[in-house]
Each structure stands twice: as structure tokens, then as C-alpha cells.
């Protein structure tokens, strides 16, 4: 059994996209170590509701690290201090008694705050709509080995496809660039025969949508890769660059 901890929670509160935000502090008492971060937020919200105050708004859904909804910037890291997990999989045992824990929303021009810790990540959907798909019906699951795909390619495509579109890459990037996300979505299709056909068009369309929506220019700091809950590699960014440059040279 983990021991209980007490700590100060500093949470960003903002009533609307245009309103000015501020931090509110809360004293959390005797929180068991095996409480997940989101469960801890639930405990706080229940207290707030009981006191007749406004609960803190935050995004969450599956709470098992695969949906990409939770999005808290905890103590200077997207999804908190652990590597390769989302906010919902952070447990309070990671923190110490007497800590001050600061929770902020993703901060980026591409992701405006809707309220408190919830941001509008619709920009990612728009990038996907610009070309993150295969335009013809490729049928059901093909028979094994009907289309031979090298193990290396299958692995790379699967690793890119692990991206859950949570936006941690943009949140971590000092340039507010969405390159890791776009490159993962381009790569997961470009490596496979079904997606290769449209690879050049896809790279151009998704990148120009990313630029149009006001995301920044990648300067290869690798902060995205370090904070990605799915460990998506920046080798995908190199692939996107390659696809894009060769498409432009051909034009």
C-alpha cells in the first residue's frame, strides 16, 4: 500500500478563450499514492461541488492511455514527469509530501484554451481532413502475406501509428510546431503500399494545412520526442521532410 500524501495544487483557471486566466491554489490532504492524477482531480472537483464552487474543467476519456484526450501540463512537462505515459496514467506516488504541483493547459496559438485546462485541439482534426487518409476503399483485412511487407516497414508504420493525437508535441515545443504529429500521420501511411501512392500529395496537403493553422517551424530541439506519451520518433519528421522536399522538387 502506498502512503498518503498532502500537497499544494496550483491550477490554471480561465473562464473562456478571451478571458484572462490565473492560478488557484488548493490544499490536498491525505491523497493515497495509488490515486491516478485524474482521480485526484475528481476528488478536488467533488470537494468544489460540495462547497458550491465551480469545478475545474479538464479533458479526459478512456483513462487507460489510448484515447489522447487528457492533456495537462504538470510541473513543466506535458503529461507530467513520467516518460511514455499520458496524464491519466500518472499516479500520485510520483510526488512527495509537501510538494507544490503546478497544472497548466497546453499553451500554443494553435490550441486556444476553451476553459481552465481544456484546450481546442480541432486543428489536428483539420490537418487530418486535409489528407491524413487513403482516398479509396482498400477492402477488409487482407490475407496474411497477400501483400508482402518487410518486418522493418511494418514496425516503423506501427510505431508511427501509435500516435494518439493528444497534442503533447505541440505543448512541449518552444516553437509550437506540430511536426511530430503531422510526420507520424504521414509516415504511418507512406511506409505501407496502400498509402504510398498518395504519399507526396498527402505530405504537401497536411503540411500546408499545419502552416495555415499557425503552428510554428520545427527547429529540431527534440522536446516533442522526449515528451511524447507514445515515444513517436523524430525520424518520422525526417521522413516527412524527405517526402515534402522530393514532392516539391518534382513539381
Amino acid at each position, binding site marked *: 500500500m502506498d502512503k498518503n500524501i498532502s500537497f499544494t495544487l496550483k491550477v490554471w483557471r480561465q473562464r473562456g478563450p478571451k478571458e484572462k486566466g490565473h492560478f488557484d491554489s488548493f490544499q490536498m490532504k491525505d491523497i493515497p499514492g495509488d490515486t491516478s492524477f485524474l482521480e485526484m482531480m475528481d476528488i478536488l472537483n467533488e470537494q468544489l461541488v460540495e462547497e458550491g464552487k465551480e469545478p475545474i474543467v479538464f479533458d479526459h476519456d478512456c483513462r487507460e492511455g489510448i484515447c489522447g484526450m487528457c492533456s495537462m501540463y504538470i510541473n513543466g512537462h506535458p503529461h507530467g514527469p513520467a516518460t511514455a505515459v499520458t496524464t491519466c496514467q500518472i499516479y500520485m506516488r510520483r510526488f512527495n509530501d509537501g510538494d507544490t504541483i503546478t497544472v497548466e493547459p497546453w499553451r500554443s496559438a494553435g490550441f486556444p484554451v476553451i476553459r481552465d485546462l481544456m484546450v481546442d485541439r480541432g486543428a489536428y482534426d483539420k490537418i487530418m481532413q486535409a489528407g491524413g487518409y487513403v482516398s479509396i476503399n482498400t477492402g477488409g483485412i487482407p490475407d496474411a502475406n497477400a501483400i508482402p511487407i518487410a518486418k522493418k516497414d511494418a514496425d516503423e508504420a506501427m510505431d508511427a501509428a501509435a500516435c494518439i493525437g493528444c497534442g503533447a508535441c505541440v505543448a512541449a515545443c518552444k516553437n509550437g510546431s506540430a511536426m511530430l504529429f503531422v510526420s507520424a500521420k504521414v509516415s504511418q501511411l507512406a511506409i505501407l503500399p496502400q498509402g504510398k501512392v498518395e504519399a507526396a500529395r498527402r505530405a504537401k496537403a497536411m503540411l500546408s494545412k499545419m502552416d495555415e493553422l*499557425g503552428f510554428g517551424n520545427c527547429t529540431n*530541439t*527534440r522536446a516533442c520526442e522526449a515528451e511524447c506519451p507514445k515515444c513517436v520518433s523524430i525520424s518520422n519528421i525526417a521522413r516527412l521532410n524527405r517526402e515534402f522536399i522530393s514532392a516539391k522538387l518534382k513539381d
Partner: protein
Amino acid sequence: MWLCNSSIGRKVVMSVTGVALILFLTFHMAMNLVAIFSGEAYNMICEFLGANWYALVATVGLGALVVIHIVYAFWLTMQNRAARGTERYAVNEKPKNVEWASQNMLALGIVILLGLGLHLFNFWAKMQLPEVLHMLGINVDTTYVADGVYHIQNTFGCPVYSVLYIVWLAALWFHLTHGFWSALQTLGWNNKIWFERWKMIGNIYSTLVVLGFVAVVVYYALCGSYC
């Protein structure tokens, strides 16, 4: 034009100009090393790269590369700051694998630019510039325009200049260690295996280039006119 209106295009311009400047630094460093072995040979190089038409064309080309690299750097930084939004994080922690240089390329670049100003003042303004002015018919003293060793001794005989040059070269080293692999990444010549290789090659290459420059400064600062 995709080199202006797409994020990857703008980065390609930074990469290509950056790689070209790394090549220039390599040649420059190689020529400097000559000054350690033979002052006479070094002065021959200075004469060869004086105000001849090919040296002037190369100087203009080099100037253009520098200007493009700097203009794009400021342009990209302005866009990136805008993309970051108006609010900044209250708590910000750098992940372990993020190099300090990668997040401070503009600051390092500004230090390098200031050093470049000093360097042009110490050498170019006393060598190629008077020669060009002389060709244009303006009356200037051209006694020492091809005497590179004389200017090296003059500059590094002063410890303040030597220290400033070392600081400048240190900033250059940080800038290059990130710039080298970053340029290749932007051009798409990278993957999981080559990432580590490029990084290692870049670190060794930048260290050799910078050490070559430092060697001349140290050599002339310590034994200057006596050797």
C-alpha cells in the same frame, strides 16, 4: 515559392545556407593553420585572396549566404514566437535529451554575428577593404593589405582580443554541434540509425574546425612575435 511559404521550405533555406557556411569555415580554418607553420606561405594565401575578381565574387556570395541565413533566422523565430501563443508556461523544465544549444540557436547566432563584426574590423577592414578602395582610386595605405601575419600578430598580441575570439569560437562550437545534424535532419537525410551517426560526425567535425581556429589564436597569443 515553396522556399518562402512553407515551413519545411524555409527550414531548407536555413539548412542549405548553414551547410555552405560550414564548408566555408572548413576552408577558412585550413588556411589559418598555415599561419602556424609558415608566415610566408600564409601571406601568399592572403595575396591570392586579396581584391582579385574571383575572391571578390566569392566574398559577395559568402556575404549573401550570411545575410540569407540571418534574415531567415529572425523570420522563423518571429513566426515561432507567434505560434507559441501569448501565455507562457509558469513552470518549464527542459527534457533530458534536449541540447541546450538547440533551444538557443538565435542567441548563439547573435553572439557569432557580434564576433563576426569584430573579426571584419580586425582583418577584412585592414586587408581586402583598403585594396578595393585603392582600386576605386581612393587614396589609402596599402602597405600591409597582404601581410596577414602582421595583422594576426597585432590582433592576438592583445589578450582582450584573444579572449573575445575564444568566446566567439565557443559560441560557434555550440551553434555547429546542433546545426550540423539539424541541417541533415531538415533535408530528410536521417533515420533512427543515422541520427546517432550524424550527431557523432557533427560533434567531431565541429570540434576539429573550432580547434583549428583556436590553435591559431592560442599560438599567436602565447608566442606571437617571438616565434
